[in-house]
């Protein structure tokens, strides 16, 4: 496999003498995603975007408006036969009756205290705390990785390739950082570089 990142960073670049300003150096990386784009990739991949948490919070609030509904139906079928007995004869059917009873009940119950505070809502708030911590943690880590990688690229760009051992070491480190960023973004980072 062609070490594309190292080639990107070194091929065509003669060294620090080619650059005069910070902006010129930074312009060399215009075709790569910006850090905020990478942060967005992480949020999407890890499903820790604030919109998910807001949806949870909203759902837990509004769920209390929905009543507990219970529906019941019962059916009662009763029948009976009446026999009349005479002393000189066998028993004879005298009469019969059949009853069909249908019953239906619908019940709706609202617990207004759950509009104020409910265990479900507290659970959502608790879970959202874990999500916030996870989000802050992965964003911190991805930001560090992104700029570690960018610093290495700048070093390679301005200091030149160095000897073969240094070039290989830099290339391996660059690939490692790229792979780590891909792990956090589900491969979107490398895909975005290739697209551009």
């Amino acid at each position, binding site marked *: 496999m062609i070490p594309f990142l190292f080639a990107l960073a070194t091929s065509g670049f003669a060294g*620090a003498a080619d650059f*005069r300003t*910070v902006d010129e*150096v930074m312009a060399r990386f215009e075709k790569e995603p910006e*850090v*905020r784009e990478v*942060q967005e990739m992480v949020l999407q991949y890890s499903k820790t975007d*604030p919109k998910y*948490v*807001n949806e949870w*919070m909203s759902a837990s609030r509004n769920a209390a408006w929905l009543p507990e509904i*219970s529906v*019941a*139906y*019962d059916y009662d079928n009763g029948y009976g036969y009446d026999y*009349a007995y005479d002393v000189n004869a066998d028993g004879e059917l*005298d*009469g019969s*009756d*059949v*009853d*069909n009873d*249908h*019953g*239906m*009940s*619908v*019940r709706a119950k*609202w*617990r*207004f*205290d759950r*509009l*104020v*505070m*409910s*265990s479900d809502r*507290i*659970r959502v*708030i*608790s879970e*959202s*705390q*874990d*999500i*916030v911590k996870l989000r802050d*943690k992965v*964003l911190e*880590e991805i*930001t*560090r990785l*992104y*700029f*570690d990688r*960018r*610093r*290495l690229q*700048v070093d390679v760009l*301005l*200091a030149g390739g160095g000897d073969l051992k240094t070039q290989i070491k830099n290339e391996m480190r660059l690939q490692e950082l790229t792979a780590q960023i891909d792990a956090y973004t589900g491969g979107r980072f490398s895909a975005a570089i290739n697209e551009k």
Partner: protein
Amino acid sequence: MPRRGLLLLLLASASARAQDVPAPPDVAPAAPDALPERLGERFVWELRAPLGSGARAAALAVQPLAGGAWFVADERGAVWVTEDQGATWERTLRGNGSAADDELPDAETLLLEAEALRDEALDEAPAELEVTPGEVNGTVDAELDPEVEVEGDAGEAAGIAAAELVRQRGGGEAVLPVLWVDPATPESVFLGRADGVWRSTDSGRTWDEASRSSADDPQVTMFRRGADGVLIAGTVAGVRYSVDEGNTWIHAEDATDGARIYAITEEASSYWASTSRGLFRSANGLSWDRVALGESAEVRAVVPDPSWDNGFWVATASALHRTDDGGATFYVAGRQPLRGLRDMLHMDETGHLLAISDDGVWESMDGGVAWTTADRQLGDPDVRGVAVTDTGVVIVTPRGLWRLVAPRIVTSKSHIHEKSLSLPDSIRASVSRDEMDIDLLSLSKLGILAAFAPQLDLKFDYGASAARRTSFATLSTGDAYDGDWTIGAQLCWGGCGSTVVVEYDAVAPEIETADSMYVFDGKVFDEGEPIAAAANVAQRIRSYRRYLAEHVADAWLSRSRLVAEIPTVRTQPLREQVLHALQIQELDARLDALTNGDFTRSITRTTEESR
């Protein structure tokens, strides 16, 4: 050599230096080429890139090689390695207890055991935390500060809580991790932290746990080699030895038992232990005798004098002692107290001492008689480690690693005016994100409202019956149809379950949920006690808000400093300028992550020429 001779030598040396030292350049190099005459006058401290992830640096070690790696341990014993003098860091060992952050207790497992363990789980908080006298003087009360976040198993939680309480209340000096590079084999690095001794044999890239802390092997506070290559460790309760590179430790009971060991120094054919109980001497590093200094104060450092055979200093918190005869006699060389002294070094020039403390960096040019501060632009006085590298002096404070650099002369005439979120606004933007809103769990208000909120029941019943009756006696048949419906509404406050009666048998009886349980943060709650659960969650939010405030403040202050340095950095090589710009961008991105992008949206920049 008599003392008068030393004084003359110092004066002669100082005089010669005054003539030889060249004037400082207009634009100084990034690092000093040689150790200066007086560091505090000619150099300033520069904070290298912070470690990241909110780590607070606690210990420092460097490989004694040109371009060797530097190692920093944070307060939890995580190890960070840099091979480019602090420009970039890589964490190679996680902190003690870090796993607990990622592996919260399995709620389902806890629920399965909740019935049996309920009482224990709810009464889990320890009644009192005892702190070993060797570590901290005094006892810490048991009522846990609500700001203290307790995680992990009980032992670890107690340890974290104790350390935090000690730190918050200033009850004593907490035991910090310690790093040590074996000078004989620089690729071997040792780490002592709360859970035991860790060892790396590949310059800190990978780590193995060598031994675990225990009652008999307490936390290590320093390492060094003794006679015949024996590994010596000072601990919070005496000296230990190892002949298998730290896998097992030998406790040879001696006079140092119970004393916290700060350092062991080899000088004048003896080993000298600086301890909380004074100075101890050993011929081989294995058995120790106490040395009378005329006072019982703890000794923090023994500093050999390379220009004087058998001469060294002994630093206590109240005075600096000196011996010129290998420890046979001592005299007081300086009486200036150095509060919170942690370590002392002798620099290249005769009589030049450098001291680090929790009150900054101090230096003396006259063998410890007079001390002056050497902490220009040191934004954090809590200095915890010092080392002399091939590029100059470096120290660590909780904020990170600092190095001495020459102050740069500003040549640019342009100034950048930047308007961005202020520090309070940045913190507010971070802690007031939707998910961090503490008002969600405003207990007093919500508790009262919930108690007065009613339950509403609406009920609709419909019944229909059909009956057919046949009489053979009268030869008649009759049909009867009957139907009725009712609708009802009921509001009730409390105990509603028993007041609603449903008339049909088929309706299931009311089932109360008071016996069901759920788990928050490792604790078990009844369904019917949401306020208790809310209090638990609110405590977690408060704790994290405090962490966020510190984190944002750290990033904001670092960024402000970098922005202020922009005119100065313009005089430096292009690489330094680019790296400086990247540092600002990184801090912007971190602040954006914590403020949902509010920070960058607030920035407006203008550049104008000064007159």
